[in-house]
């Protein structure tokens, strides 16, 4: 996580489109859409009702929306997530609650 990360604090609600080229930590609530070039972290207090397009997503809180990541989506133990995931690497920890479709957009070798 770089030092210049943006933070959406606990008491903040954003409705609309959010895009940018740096890391973002969400502790509050975001509704709409998020497009980032870097790492999105939804903290345990965070609630995201948005379609998300980014490089990495780490979800520790609540997320409802479709996710497309160019690198990795990680759903940690206490997260509650609904939505489809498209990413080369998808990690779902023990204890996480998730509903949706997962597509790891990688070409599998022949015969698998």
């Amino acid at each position: 996580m770089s030092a210049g990360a943006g933070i959406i604090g606990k008491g903040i609600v954003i409705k609309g489109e959010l895009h940018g080229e740096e890391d973002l930590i969400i502790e509050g609530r975001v509704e709409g859409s998020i497009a980032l070039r870097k790492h999105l972290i939804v903290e345990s207090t965070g609630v995201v009702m948005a379609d998300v397009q980014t490089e990495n997503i780490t979800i520790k809180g609540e997320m409802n929306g479709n996710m497309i990541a160019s690198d990795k989506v990680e759903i940690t133990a206490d997260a509650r997530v609904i939505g489809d995931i498209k990413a080369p690497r998808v990690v779902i920890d023990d204890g996480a609650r998730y509903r949706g479709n997962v597509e790891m957009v990688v070409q599998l070798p022949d015969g698998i």
Partner: protein
Amino acid sequence: MAKTIIGNTIVIDGEIEGGEDLVIKGTVHGKIALKESLFVESSGVVEADIETQNVEISGELTGNVICTDKVEVKKDGKMTGDIRAPRILIADGAHFKGNVDMEKR
């Protein structure tokens, strides 16, 4: 005090509301409603109608501002729009165009 920071490269189109301080270094279009202070940093660009307690402008702000306490346009700040607040400070060097209303309501 929890603090929200909208970073340099972040662009938000929409509404922001909340009960804590907000620091804007990026770009926000739309509407902002806060119960605390709003800081528009020198790299910040805000085109929004604002309702909050305090605003401090070191960047660019276009829109109407209604504050319950204070509006401060710092020396590098550029503000276009109407201000309604009990206390309004405009520093030497600041750029301001608009209407000022300090009347108590």
